[in-house]
Structures are given as structure tokens and as C-alpha cells.
């Protein structure tokens, strides 16, 4: 059965190991060298935004900073570029967290799109000030595909929380 935003009440709390496993997996996906392929979503930003909205007390700006730094190292980008973008992303995701969850998935992704665009604008601004060349408008395409991936991704990340506390064969979900 398709879980909906209305079934929030019966969710189990997210396990800490699952949160960090999903963040590490996102880091791995971001490390896949796709070169200049346009429109590859920023998995790290998406998963960070997801947990900052779902669990604002457990995942926040500190996680954004650490994982941003790891991406800076892995990508050979400027140190602090992704970290700065993700810290701000996590802050605004935390601010929005009480509001976003009232909406169905499609409208949630409309809330997430400006967050992802903000992160990318910060990175472009930082590097342009640092003297790099503008990468072209296709660069922002990854925010659009990221927002499209929001609904399926949040379904996947919520699956472990949909499990019943005690096994019951007659339970509908």
C-alpha cells in the first residue's frame, strides 16, 4: 500500500544507524564520477534536506558541514564550498520542517526545489568570487531533477519507519 503523508502518526522513530547509513550511501552516489553529464541530482543535498525536515533535532547543520567537507575533498572542489552550501541548506530545511510535512509529496518537492537552488547559487557565487569560470546554465538542471526525485526518495527513506513494532500478519500495512 502506498504510504501517504497522512500516515505520519503511525511512523516508527527513525533509527540513528539508518540515518547515517543513508547519508553515507548518498555520499557514495555523489562520488560516482559522472563527468559533465548534465542534470545528475545532488544526492547528498537531497538526503540531508530529507533528514533535516524529518528529524530536525537529530540531523542539522553539523551533519551538513561534515558531509559537505567530505564532498569537497572527494570532488577536488574548494574546501568549504559544499560545506557552506549544505550548512545553509540544512538551516533552511530545519526552519521549513514544521511546514513542509503538512503537504503531499508533490508540493513538498516544490518546497525543496528552492532549497536545492539556494545551495547551488551559493556554490556558484563562492567560486565566481574565487575566480572560476561560470559553468553554464545547465548546471542548475541538477536542482530540477533533484526536486523530481524527492517523492520516490522520501518513500524509500521512509520504508523502514513503516514497519510495525510487533509482527502482526493481519495488519494491513
Amino acid at each position, binding site marked *: 500500500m502506498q504510504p501517504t503523508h497522512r500516515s505520519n502518526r503511525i511512523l516508527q522513530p527513525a533509527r540513528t544507524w539508518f540515518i547515517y547509513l543513508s547519508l553515507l550511501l548518498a555520499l557514495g552516489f555523489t562520488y560516482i*564520477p559522472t563527468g559533465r553529464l548534465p542534470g545528475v541530482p545532488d544526492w547528498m543535498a537531497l538526503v540531508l534536506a530529507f533528514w533535516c525536515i524529518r528529524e530536525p533535532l537529530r540531523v542539522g547543520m553539523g551533519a551538513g558541514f561534515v558531509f559537505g567537507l567530505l564532498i569537497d575533498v572527494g570532488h*577536488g572542489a574548494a574546501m568549504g564550498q559544499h560545506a557552506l552550501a549544505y550548512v545553509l541548506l540544512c538551516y533552511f530545511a530545519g526552519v521549513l520542517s514544521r511546514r513542509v510535512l503538512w503537504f503531499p509529496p508533490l508540493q513538498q518537492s516544490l518546497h525543496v526545489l528552492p532549497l536545492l537552488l539556494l545551495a547551488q547559487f551559493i556554490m556558484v557565487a563562492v567560486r565566481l568570487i574565487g575566480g572560476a569560470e561560470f*559553468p553554464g546554465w545547465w548546471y542548475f538542471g541538477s536542482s530540477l531533477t533533484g526536486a523530481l526525485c524527492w517523492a520516490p526518495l522520501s518513500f524509500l527513506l521512509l520504508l523502514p519507519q513503516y514497519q510495525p513494532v510487533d509482527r502482526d500478519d493481519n495488519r494491513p500495512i
Partner: protein
Amino acid sequence: MLKMSLVGHQSPPFFRRGPTPVARLLALVALCLVMLIADLRFRYLEVVRQALSVVTYPLQMVAKAPVDFVRNATVYFATLVEVQVENADLRRSQLEAAQRLLRFEHLERQNEELRRLLGMARSVEIHSVAAEILYDAPDPFARKVILDKGAHHGVVTGLAVVDAYGMIGQITRVYPVQSEVTLVTDKEQTIPVQVERSELRGVLVGGGKGLLEMRFVTADSDILPGDRLVSSGLDGIFLAGLPVARVVSVEPDGEAFLRVLGEPLARVERAVQVLVLGRATPAPPRPLPSSALDLSADSVESGDSAGEAKPE
């Protein structure tokens, strides 16, 4: 009574959240800005980067496995006709190269002999590593590629990277088994060059748009469209004489200077097999300004001791 019961207890964990979110935000943003300035402006953080890359390295190796698999699969399914055509091409170019190589060996011996007779320093010995370009670097703000050879294979930062036609870039960062090449077309890449015909020296800067610009060429310089630009080797890092670019346009830029644009000779964006080239021994160190002798022409003539010669 109620007050008494609250005094001894700490607030429940839900209410203990440390500094306010805005305070944490400002602290982390400040930290990020400090790091950005330290890295982009002063390059202080290479040590931190190397240390952290030890942590991220295993994950990166796992992450590039699917890309490697796809790349190997496309090689495996290359058609027979393609391979035959390529093979014929290679045979022909090898034959041409062999002729030149025979003459080259002869010339090299002759050169060595003449240098010995003239008492000149021996020509520079070359350190070279053959490598393959794996993929574009993930950072979309710079023109960089990743090579499949790294510190284990003797690659160090600063070496030139060439393909069969000329220079494509310079090694700017070395990982254990990979290295990062900044292409000559990158906005921040600079190469000291020389016009092959007139031996005019200058500095070539990547324009960022695929063309290269030779900076600070005075208006009376001898440079024409079609001239080949080769590396001058004056930096003590690159070998002299590596072909870099061909001049495509020379226009006056104001009163005093020329605007010289060149296009790279190498297949910068398309090369796959490359050679990493450098000096086998480091260049002799630059003389220090403090060790300069104060010998001017008039002090030698008048026989005064150095340092006391004064203009009239």
C-alpha cells in the same frame, strides 16, 4: 514545594538544544568562509585535504567501479571494423614515426658530442609516465581531468601532460593512484612560452573559452598569426620546446600592447592516451637576492671596492 522539586533536576533532554540555531549557523558559516579563503587565496589546506582523502578514498574507489565497468564494456563491444581501421592508422603513423626516430637518435648522439666539445651543460634528462585520462573532474567550475596514474607511479605535481600533438595541461594534485590535470584551457592555468620563429618570450593564459591568450606582448613584437608557441622552460618545471598553441589572431589592444589569441595544438578535450613529462632532476635553484654581488660597470673600471661605488 513544586519549586523545590525543580531545583535539583536538569531540564528534560528535549529542551536542551545547546546554542540557538542562528548562533550555530553563524559559527559554521564563519568557519566555512575562513576555510574558503584559506584554500582559494592562500592554498593552506592541502594537508587537511590529503588527510581527509585517506578517509574518503575507499568510498571513492567503490563509487567509480560502475563507471569503470561501463567504460570497459564499451571497449569490449567495439566493432571489428573500427579496430581494423584504427590498426591500419597506427601502423602508418608508426612507420612515419620510425623514420623520424632513426634520424632523431642520430641527431641526439651528434648533439651530445657537440655539447661535450663546447663544454656546455648536459641536456636535461626526461622523466616520463604514460597514462590514460579516466574522466572529467567532478568540479564543474574548472577544466580538469583525472589520470589513472598517481603518486605510486612517480607522478608529482607540476609535471606537464602532453598528447601526440602538444601540451594538454599540468598535474595540479596527486592522489595515491590517480592524479588531477588542469587543462591549458582552464581560466587559471598559466604557461611560460616562446614563439618558435622569433624566440619572443611570453606568458600564455587559458582564457576559459577554449582559446588561450598570450599576455603582455608589446605592440612592436614580432608575432604573426600561424606562429607556433612552445614552452620556454624558464619556470624550471616544464621541459623547453613542448608545442602548446598556434597563434590565430593578433590585434592591437590599446596603444602599447597586442591582444594575441592562440588555439591549443593538442586535442585538449578529446585526448585519451597521454604522457606525463618532467625533468628527471630538479632545476638548479634560483639565486637568492641576498647573495647578489654589488658589481657595477663603473666600480670595476675605477677599481673601487664593491659597495662603495656611488654615482656622481
